[in-house]
């Protein structure tokens, strides 16, 4: 969104309280959604739960095309449609719900830096593994991505998406990396997160912030999603404080009797 449009939306957003019928749209959970989208979606859901805002999750095959920015997930609240965690955080702040108000400037700078680290390393690594690694792409990503569509559209869309992601990897210099190097990067990122978390319950004091939501979304999805091999999940599992962090957030915010919000055929269900 352009800056003027963003300011306008914030103004409108501030006018109304959070409605009861807010909806979050994501691709189909059982068959279509991929690791990176699932992680982003879970991060947004966690953030909204931490704010105590009710939202209903609705799965649509064309969620990506409905989204204003082309990225999932997006939320439909009242008259507005907002996509991606960053703008959603700003939107909820305009409505008067914010998690990071208690932080001072230096801490806020740190929080933004760590969120960029997660986006830069974890999200990019997920995209790389999904689309630039030939075996994962052929066995998992392309079939899943194009599952709602019939031939020949499914082939066209899947290869188009793969081409787009590979172009992006090329532009940021990741296309020259091998899979081992990507796993190593993920490990470094998790090490940084683990050291920052230390023994605290959350990343900043005792209150959760959007950084906790983002980290939980990515780590939980990595731990519970089945890929061609388990190496990614193993890298995360080697950091015990991150594992207990995920357990804690899951217990606090996602305690549901049937656990239908978390498990699917694609995911392995419970945390190990």
């Amino acid at each position, binding site marked *: *969104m*352009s*800056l003027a449009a963003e300011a306008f939306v914030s103004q409108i957003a501030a006018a109304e309280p959070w409605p009861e019928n807010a909806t979050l749209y994501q691709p189909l959970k059982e068959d279509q959604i991929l690791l990176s989208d699932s992680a982003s979606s879970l991060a947004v859901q966690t953030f909204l739960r931490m704010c105590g805002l009710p939202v209903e999750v609705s799965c649509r095959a064309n969620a990506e095309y409905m989204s*204003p*920015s*082309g*990225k999932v997930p997006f939320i439909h609240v009242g008259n507005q449609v907002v996509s991606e965690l960053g703008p959603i955080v700003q939107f909820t702040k305009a409505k008067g719900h914010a998690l990071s108000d208690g932080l001072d*400037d*230096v801490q*806020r*700078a*740190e929080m*933004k*830096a*760590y969120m*960029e*680290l997660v*986006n*830069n*390393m974890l999200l990019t690594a997920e995209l790389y593994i999904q689309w630039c690694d030939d075996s994962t792409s052929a066995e998992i990503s392309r079939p899943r991505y194009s599952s709602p569509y019939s031939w020949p559209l499914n082939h066209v869309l899947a290869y188009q998406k793969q081409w787009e992601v590979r*172009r*992006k990897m090329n*532009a*940021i210099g990741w296309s020259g990396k091998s899979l081992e190097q990507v796993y190593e*990067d993920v490990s*470094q*990122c998790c*090490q*940084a*997160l683990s*050291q*920052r978390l*230390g023994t605290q319950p959350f990343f900043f004091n005792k209150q959760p912030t959007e950084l906790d939501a983002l980290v939980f979304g990515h780590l939980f999805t990595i731990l519970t999603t089945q890929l061609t091999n388990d190496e990614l999940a193993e890298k995360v599992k080697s950091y015990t404080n991150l594992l207990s962090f995920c357990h804690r957030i899951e217990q606090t915010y996602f305690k549901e009797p049937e656990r239908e919000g978390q498990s699917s055929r694609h995911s392995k269900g419970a945390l190990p």
Partner: protein
Amino acid sequence: MGLLFWCSFMKTNMAEPALEVLCWGGDWGLPSVQTDSLIVLSYGKFADAKIAVKSVDWTWRTITASVPQLHFEGTTRINADFELTAKQGADTMAYIALLEEKLRPALLHSFWVDPENYANLTRPWFTSHSPFPLNFFVPGRQASLALSRILLTKAESPLLNITEVEGKIYSEAKECLNLLSHRLGNFPFFFGNSPTSLDAFVFGHIAPLLKAPLPSAQLQKHLNQLENLCQFCNSILKNYFIDSMAERRNDCSPTAPHDSVDANLQKLTQLVNKESNLIEKMDDNLRSSPQHRPHSHKNSALA
């Protein structure tokens, strides 16, 4: 990020400079005009490594090699980060990610995509520093790489036009500069009193923005208002690079405290020159406009 880990595993023989860095040359008071080269050079200085700098200007390496490049042999390690705690190491990674994601697109845009800057500063400089016939290809290739990187990472589907992305990337870059300024506070470096790899990264990104004489420079103006970041850059230049810069400049007196005054004067002169150019342009418009009759005696007074 690859640069960072490459740096921490460099080995050299302490006796003579067995470490060779190939990078773009310097100008505008900087040892090198390119961000990545600056990062490597400043990291080497912080870690007290003996580095021989070889410039790729005017060689065919501008197109065959991806600069900067390190060539090394030997046994001893170089590391500027051994005094950092684990948490500070994690913070370093996070801030580097922030810089790459928020500041780098706007820097690329300022130098390579903005038409005025590209035509008046960047392309002439790189053209003049590349051998024939590479001077026809090299700047254009860098510019298109920069543009594609910005569009692919920042432009989402409705914002397919570069002008709409501009607003977003500049506001993110200004926010990033503000965050860095908050984090630096009143300290000389980001982690206490001695410089580390994070300082090298920040310096590499900010120094070209601070020093380059950009014609259209909203980001530069914003940076100039952040006193502590400017101070940070200038003190690194003064303390770590001033001897090599003095050789290059062929100036007799190592007037280190006068550098900032000179820089200010230079800036003011540029502003005044720009304004007088604008006045001349307006003048020409007035003269050539058919509505106004040419008043030659008035014009000669202005010019």
